[in-house]
């Protein structure tokens, strides 16, 4: 019987094995980005900037030209790349510590300048690679290795809402927060990523997709528990939705 191919690895991913923990959603996020790069026929003309964090090896997983920025500096590096090669597609892939703590200034100013690249932002409320420390997005009361008694917001600050922070900057062309906890959410996330890259293609300005994610390892949960916990707690703190859309709905 002849084999029929119904699903395959996107061209925009290499065959390198992911380094992520079991149950981590980076793999899903990578795949969605890769599918969109292929769908929009951008793969061969894309340059990516990986961050410091769990996804530091992302430049090896995506089958595109790539580099790694210093911690937090991905959008500054992407600014340099895009300004030098305005005809190429450029994206950064960053976690919450990278983008919303050490790289806050670079994030805000790249967005404000309306830099014509896309940021995929993974918010899992914790520093994964360094072993589970408190992130700017850590929830109130959440225990981490540097907030062992729980995050006391009056002492350690409040969870940072990146989309809400960026939505008033005129340089932003597309801004949406998505989740990866149900098949419907994953479909929606893929559509959002597509719009973000279309915003870039059309030269409308900066686009960022915040993906609410999990960290079963550092949350001390099983993969299934972490998804349930994220649906309950993370989505309460970080409601899903479109914050800026200058792309519109025409195809």
């Amino acid at each position, binding site marked *: 019987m002849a084999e029929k191919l119904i699903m395959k690895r996107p061209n925009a991913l290499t065959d390198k094995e992911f380094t992520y923990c079991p149950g981590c959603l980076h793999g899903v996020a990578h795949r969605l980005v890769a599918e969109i790069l292929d769908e929009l026929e951008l793969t061969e003309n894309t340059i990516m900037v990986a961050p410091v964090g769990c996804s530091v090896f992302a430049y090896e997983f995506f089958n595109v030209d790539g580099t790694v920025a210093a911690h937090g500096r991905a959008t500054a590096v992407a600014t340099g790349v*895009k300004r030098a090669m305005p005809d190429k597609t450029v994206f950064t892939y960053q976690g919450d510590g990278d983008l919303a703590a050490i790289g806050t200034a670079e994030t805000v100013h790249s967005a404000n300048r309306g830099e014509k690249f896309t940021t995929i932002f993974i918010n899992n409320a914790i520093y994964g690679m360094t072993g589970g420390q408190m992130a700017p997005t850590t929830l109130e009361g959440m225990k981490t290795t540097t907030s062992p008694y729980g995050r006391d917001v009056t002492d350690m600050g409040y969870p940072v809402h990146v989309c809400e922070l960026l939505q008033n900057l005129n340089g932003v062309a597309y801004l949406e927060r998505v989740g990866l906890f149900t098949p419907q959410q994953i479909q929606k996330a893929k559509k959002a990523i597509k719009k973000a890259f279309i915003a870039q293609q059309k030269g409308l300005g900066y686009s960022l997709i915040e993906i609410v994610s999990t960290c079963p390892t550092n949350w001390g949960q099983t993969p299934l528990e972490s998804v349930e916990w994220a649906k309950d707690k993370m989505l309460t703190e970080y409601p899903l939705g479109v914050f800026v859309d200058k792309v519109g709905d025409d195809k």
Partner: protein
Amino acid sequence: MDSDKIMMKGTEAMGEAAIRAGCKLYFGYPITPQSELPEYMSRRLPEIDGTFLQAESEVAAVNMVYGAACTGTRVMTSTSSPGFSLMMEGVSYIAGAKLPSVFINVVRGGPGLGDIQPAQSDYFQATKGGGHGDYRLIVLAPSTLQEAVDHIGLAFDMTDQYRTPALIIADGMLGQMMEPVSLPEFSNTDHKSVHEDWALRGAKGREKHMVTSFDIDPVKLEKMNEGYQETYKEIEKNEVRVEEYMMEDAEYAFVAYGTMARIIKTTIKMARAEGIKVGLVRPITLWPFPYKAIEKAAEQSKFLLTVEMSMGQMLEDVRLGANGKVPTPFYGRSGGVVPTPTEVLNALKKEMGV
């Protein structure tokens, strides 16, 4: 060539020289005493379809340089001491990723906020690291505006050839003075093509390219480090530059660079008028440092008097070169105070015991 000379301010002449050398992108942040350079680039780069971008900080600026350099396009930034300190993280990454790029540090008095007057107190930072890791920068120290202009093209050529970042050390004196300079012709070389085999330009029709300063495997990272060192050895072999001024019959020698060396040439004329046979060894490349010229001077002179606008930083390299053969006294002013020719002459006489 004299008829082609035009009067220009230091920072602006350096900017124009960069554009003529094929610099397409400039990223920077305003800081005294070099803000005229970004101002000049903001006017000039759009005229040649280049890109000027004022970053939100020197931290961002150096990372924008990193990004543009990843594409193998000629890119530069300029700053002054506190700003260069902020760039150190990025400079280390740029050195590790072997990205061609040109930096100008118009050095001012330090440490800390310091002041905005001319100084040479960033020598250690420029030549001994500054950022983390085993890396080197090619460091050029012009002493006239014409030399600064010439060094810009040289810096771009060397950084392209060796894939090692190049730094031009100037000071407020050089940056702010006006002098007649002869500018180079516009370069019409395709500088981008030499980086085709590694640059990030999209992987169409080839294997993907990756540019990093990174390997998590210690053995592989050591290999990368050995690679850097091989390049540095080549640079040390080929690129040492030094001026020996009135050294033929010299019984005493000054060692100084940049603005300080220029002042000392006046001191030497004054001293020779009094019958004192003194010369100057002027390192033009601070790294690679001209240790051999220092050694040679030590063999013919009674002492080597190092003079710096710092508390004594290059002095350590002079002592390495002299290797104990002769005394190596020091005279320096800091905080942005510029020694006068007479003051230096008095320092020389004091060492001579006259």
